[in-house]
C-alpha cells in the first residue's frame, strides 16, 4: 500500500469489540496510564459483549480484518447481570463456524478485562497481534470462496 512505509513484517488489521462498562474503560485506562501496545486493533464500542451479533465478526473477516477481538467484563461482573456469558457461548460457536469456513479459530480471541485492568488489556493485545502475525494474512476475500484452498470438512466435536 502506497501511503505506508515499507515494512519488513506483516501488520495485521484487527477489529476489536468492547463493552461500554469494563473493557472499553480498560482501554481508556491503558490510555490514561500511557501504557503502550500494538497499534493494530481498532475498537468498536458496544453496550455489552452480549450485544455482539456473530454477524459482526463474520462481517469483519469478510471486510478484510485478519483477526477479531471480543472483550467484555469478567464472568460474574457483567453490568447487565450475566450477558457476557452469552458472548462466551457465542464465541465457542463462532470458533467452530470459523473452522468450517477454513479460517483459523485462533484469529478470534475472547478477553475479559475489568475497568481496572488496563495493563492486562494492553499486554493481551500486543500478545494477540504477535499471534496473528505468526498466522500471517487472512487468505480470504470478500468476493467469495473461489480462490480459497479446498477446506477439508472435519467434524467438530460438540
Amino acid at each position: 500500500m502506497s501511503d505506508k512505509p515499507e515494512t519488513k513484517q506483516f501488520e495485521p488489521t484487527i477489529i476489536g469489540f468492547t463493552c461500554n462498562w469494563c473493557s472499553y474503560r480498560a482501554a481508556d485506562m491503558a490510555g490514561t496510564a500511557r501504557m503502550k501496545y500494538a497499534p493494530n486493533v481498532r475498537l468498536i464500542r458496544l453496550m455489552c459483549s452480549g450485544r455482539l451479533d456473530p454477524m459482526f465478526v463474520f462481517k469483519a473477516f469478510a471486510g478484510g480484518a485478519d483477526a477479531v477481538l471480543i472483550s467484555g467484563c469478567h464472568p460474574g461482573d457483567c453490568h447487565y447481570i450475566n450477558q457476557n456469558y452469552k458472548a462466551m457461548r457465542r464465541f465457542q460457536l463462532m470458533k467452530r463456524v470459523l473452522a468450517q469456513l477454513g479460517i483459523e479459530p485462533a484469529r478470534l480471541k475472547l478477553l475479559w478485562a475489568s475497568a481496572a485492568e488496563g495493563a492486562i488489556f494492553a499486554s493481551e493485545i500486543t500478545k494477540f497481534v504477535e499471534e496473528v502475525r505468526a498466522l500471517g494474512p487472512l487468505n480470504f476475500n470478500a468476493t467469495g470462496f473461489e480462490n480459497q484452498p479446498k477446506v477439508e470438512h472435519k467434524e467438530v466435536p460438540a
Partner: protein
Amino acid sequence: MEKKEKIGVYVCHCGTNIAGVVNVGEVSTWAAENLKDQGVVIARDYKFMCSSLGQELIQKDIKELGLTRVVVAACSPHLHEATFRNACKGADLNPYLCELVSIREQSSWVHTDKVAATEKAKALISGGVSRVVHHEALEPLHVPIHPATLVVGGGIAGIQAAIEIADAGFQVYLVEREPSIGGHMAQFDKTFTTLDCSACILTPKMVQAGNHPNITLLTYSEVEKVDGYVGNFVVSIRKRARSVNEKDCTGCGICWEKCPKKVVDNVYEVGMGTRKAVYVPFPQAVPKYPVIDRENCTYYIKGTCKACEKFCPTNAINFAQEDEILNIEVGNVILATGYDAFDAHRITQYGYGRLANVFTSLEFERLSNAAGPTGGNIVMRDGKTTPKVVGIVHCVGSRDKNYNEYCSAICCMQSLKFAHLVHERTGAEVYNFYIDIRTPAKGYEEFYHRLLEEGTHFVRGKVAEISDAVRLPGEEGKLIIQVEDTLTGNQLRVPVDMAILSAGLEPRADAKEVAKKFGISCSADGWLIERHPKLDPVSTVTEGIYIAGCVQGPKDIPASVVQGAAAAARILGKIQQKEVLLEPVRASVNQDQCSGCRICNNVCPFNAILFHEDTMVSEVNPALCQGCGTCVAACPAGAISGTGFSNLQILSQIDGLLMLNIPRKEAVV
C-alpha cells in the same frame, strides 16, 4: 440512501496530547478528501475542541454549512461525549447525531509509532463517519428521582452522610450490620492529632442520627438485593431478628445484667473482653435496644433459661421474633461499608497469637480506652504488669507485596498516637520501627515533632521478626524485635515487654459481593472504584451509587467525614433536579418482523420483554430495558433493533474501520 447527510469532522490536537503523536493536519486533510463519498463536507483540526472556541467552531459550521452529522475525533466518549452533544444541541442539531471517536486513549497515548498512530486515527474516524450516517435523532429519557436515600454502613462516613441529607429535609435509610452504629471509631480511645476522646466527638453524632426524624435507622440489618436504576432503586433489606421488641424496650439494661451467659466479644472488644448473650455492644450504643445473640444464648441452645424474659420490666423480650424483609424505594445510594483491620496472624514471624505480649492496633485501642477491658490501664497480657519497654511496628500488612502493596495511610499517625499514649500513661521507653514516616495533613508533621521531643526512639527499618529467642544478657523474659537500623546499617535486637503491630486496613471480606450487588466495580485489591480518582472521588460508574469513607480506600477520620459530606452534597444536588436524564439506548421489537419465537424473552436479564399471547409477538418494556442489546443479537428474525447501537450502525462502522485495508487485501490475493 435517499438523503445525503452533511458531515463535519473535527480533529482535536488536545495540545500535544494527540498532536504530539498523530499527525492531525494530515488526518483532517485525508478525511476531507477521502470521506467525501460518505458525506463529509468539512474536516478541521483545532488545538482544543472541548474549549468554548472549539465548540463554537462546530456550532458555526452546523449553522453555516447546514451540517446534519458531527464526528469529533478527540478523547474517550466517557470524558467529553456530553460536551460535544451539548454543543450540537446549542446549534439546534439533535445531540444524538454526534459521534465521538477516541484517538487519544486509543491512539496517541498508547502508541509510539507516529505513522501507525496516524493511520489508526484515520481508520477510527472513517469508522465513526460510516456509523454516524445511521444515527437517529433521539430524545433522552426523563426519569423522576425518588427523594429518599439509602446509606449502607453506620460508621463515621455513613453517619455524616445521613445527617447531611436528613438535615436538608430528605428521608434517609441508614443500614448497619452490627447492633449499633458507630463503626470502628466507636472502638478508639483517642483520635490523632488533637487527642480528643473518640467517644466524646462521635456519640453526639450517633445520637443525632438515632433521633433524627428524617433518618430511619435499620441496625442489625443487611441489604439483600438491589433492583432498578438511578432515581428508582428498589432495595430489599433483611432486618435480622433482635429477639427484642423495639417499641417496648426502654434500654434499661436489666436483661444483660441478669443474663448468665458470658461470651468473648470478638467484634467490639476484639477478643479482649466479654459481653453477655443479650447485649448492646457498648454503653453509648445507638439504638439503645439490645440483641440476643442466638448462637450463644442458653435458651436457643438448650431450650431453658429465659432469665432476660423473666426480669424484663416491659416484656420486651420476644424469642419467637423472625427476620423481616423490608422493601424500600430510594433514588440514590451511598456505600460506606468501611474496612477490616489486617489480620496480624498472617505475618507469622511477628508472633501474633503465639507470643502473648504481641498486640494489634485495635487491641491496643481497647487496652488504652477508659471504657475498655482494663479500664484504660496499659498492661501486658497478664492483666497487671505495666510494660517498661514497648515497640511499635509500623506497616504491618501494608507496603508489602506478600500482603498488601498499598500504604494504609493511617498507620504512621496511629503509631505516633500509641507512642504518645504509652509514654504518657506508663512512662515506658517507646520504640517506633518505621520504613518512612508519612504525615501529610494539617498538624500531622507537628504531632510527629512532638513525639520526637517526648524522647520516643525512632528506628528506621522494617521489623524482620519478633521472637522469644533469648540469647544475650538482659533479654530474659522479653520479646526480641530484630531489625536493621538502616540509618546506621546495624542489625539490632531490641528487647521489649510489649510489641504493638500497627495493622493496615483491608477491604471488607465481602467487598466484592457488595460491589456486585450494587453493580459497581472493585480494584484488584478490593477497594471500590470511584468514577475519577481525582475529579470525581465519591461517585461511581453506576449512576446513583456513591461511595464514602474507607470502602473507597484507606483513609483517616477527617477524610472519611469529608467524603460522607461530599457524597451527601452530590445526592442533594440530584434530588433538587427532581428528574434524571437517561441515555435513550433501548431495544424495540418490529412487530411485523417478529415471528413470536420467544428466544428474546429468555435472554433478557431484566425480564423487560413481554410476549403477547393474543398477537403472538414480543414487546420490549422501555421502562425495564437497560439497553444491553443481547436480545438484538439473539433475535433470529432480526426483528429487534437497539437505538444507538443498531446493526446498521455497527456493520457500517466495521466497513469504515476497514476502508483503508481493501487495497492491501487486493495486493495480497
